[in-house]
């Protein structure tokens, strides 16, 4: 141990032994933080303490010195815990860096292009509860049709990323095919069923807007219902459709329904991170979410989505308990 450290420790402690002042304790404690930064183990601190005390008061009784030797022995395992901690911190930092890379790769690999359909205003937000998002949005753009798949995949991290890639590459293969919602969910279901074991489920809502007929058609694989806001009646209707979670049964059948959107109407597709937002006092009521949506009914789809997120996130004390995703398809007013 450097002589200098013992000398400084001695000086600080000597002052404290004279005055017992708070100032000396403050100085001492700041000094102890530097010990930790310099990887000085707790058993070293006891040893430094013993040397300093001996230099200050060499004539203390033998039991004092022996008891400090005993204390050194008691501290060895604490020192080991501390060194193990430093190694874990480094490990954790490495994992963090890896996660940052992973997030970036995932973003690149799973990127999707927001539709730009005639007469349709699209807004969306997807916020992970932790670093990696387990919700996934995939846009499919075809002539006169803009579709979106909103999925909540099982778990997080690698399993989630792999599920997403399955959805993405599956959807990529659909570019020139029949993209009617029931058909799409049927195809994706078979890919998922083939690739994952029974414990893996994915919920998905698939919505397709036909810009010629202004029709929004949809199908659901065990996903949260969407909400349709009618600008005429200022009321919300739930858009739900029967269908099993993806990956459960090879030959699952998905119902398809549709609704015609009037100017100013919008459809809100969400994951359960939105509908099951929790505060200290329990779940946030669906009616509260509808109120938030209605408040911004005249704004752009993106503004509505952003507003709902910021309000719900505030109500949850900025601690999301689940990944949070909203996609809004709004029929533009001309």
């Amino acid at each position, binding site marked *: 141990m450097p002589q200098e450290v013992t000398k400084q420790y001695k000086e600080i402690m000597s002052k404290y032994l004279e005055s017992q002042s*708070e*100032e000396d*304790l*403050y100085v001492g*404690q700041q000094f102890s933080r530097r010990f930790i930064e310099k990887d000085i183990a707790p058993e070293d601190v006891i040893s430094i303490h013993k040397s300093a005390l001996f230099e200050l008061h060499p004539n203390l009784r033998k039991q004092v010195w022996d008891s400090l030797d005993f204390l050194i022995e008691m501290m060895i395992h604490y020192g080991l815990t501390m060194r193990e901690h430093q190694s874990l*911190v480094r490990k*954790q*930092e490495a994992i*963090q860096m890896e996660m940052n890379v992973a997030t970036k790769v995932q973003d690149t690999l799973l990127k999707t292009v927001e539709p730009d359909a005639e007469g349709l205003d699209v807004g969306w937000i997807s916020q992970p509860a932790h670093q990696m998002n387990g919700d996934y949005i995939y846009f499919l753009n075809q002539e006169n049709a803009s579709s979106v798949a909103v999925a909540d995949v099982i778990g997080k991290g690698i399993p989630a990323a792999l599920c997403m890639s399955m959805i993405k590459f599956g959807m990529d293969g659909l570019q020139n095919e029949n993209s009617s919602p029931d058909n799409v969910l049927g195809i994706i279901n078979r890919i998922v069923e083939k690739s994952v074991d029974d414990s893996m489920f994915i919920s998905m809502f698939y919505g397709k807007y036909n810009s010629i007929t202004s029709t929004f058609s949809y199908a659901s694989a065990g996903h949260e219902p969407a909400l349709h806001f009618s600008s005429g009646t200022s009321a919300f209707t739930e858009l739900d459709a029967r269908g099993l979670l993806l990956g459960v049964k090879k030959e699952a059948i998905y119902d398809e329904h549709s609704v015609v959107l009037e100017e100013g109407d919008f459809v809100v597709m969400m994951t359960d991170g939105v509908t099951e937002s929790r505060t200290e006092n329990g779940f946030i009521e669906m009616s509260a979410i509808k109120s938030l949506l209605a408040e911004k009914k005249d704004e752009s789809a993106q503004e509505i989505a952003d507003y709902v997120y910021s309000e719900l996130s505030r109500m949850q004390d*900025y*601690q999301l308990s689940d990944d949070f995703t909203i996609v809004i398809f709004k029929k533009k007013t001309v």
Partner: protein
Amino acid sequence: MNLGSSVEIITEWDIVAARQLGRNEAKQVGFGTVDQARITTAISELARNIYLYAGKGKIEIERISEAGLVGIKIIASDEGPGIPDLRKVMEDGFTTSGGLGAGMPGVKRLMDEFKVISEVGEGTTIITTKWLH
């Protein structure tokens, strides 16, 4: 019951004054030596954060009692820059990165209850409590 007093934090000396006040109050409440040291350390961290990152602020210390329990409550407040990402600040490991909110998980561990309210540009208030068990 609500006894207590407060210290303005402007210079580094005020950190020591806040510590002294906290230690005295903790002793009055009946905390043992180690818990006195823990409470004092928590105050020290909060006061240093004010001193280093907000420039000035205040530490209030109250003796509290509730449902037959007694304890000590510390309120640290400043009108500094605020904390932009509260989620991050409360994470372990952030301690080492210094800056505003450094050591918050530590303060949380030294005490029993911990709450932080912060608005960017408006300032930060931290309320933390320790009960005598």
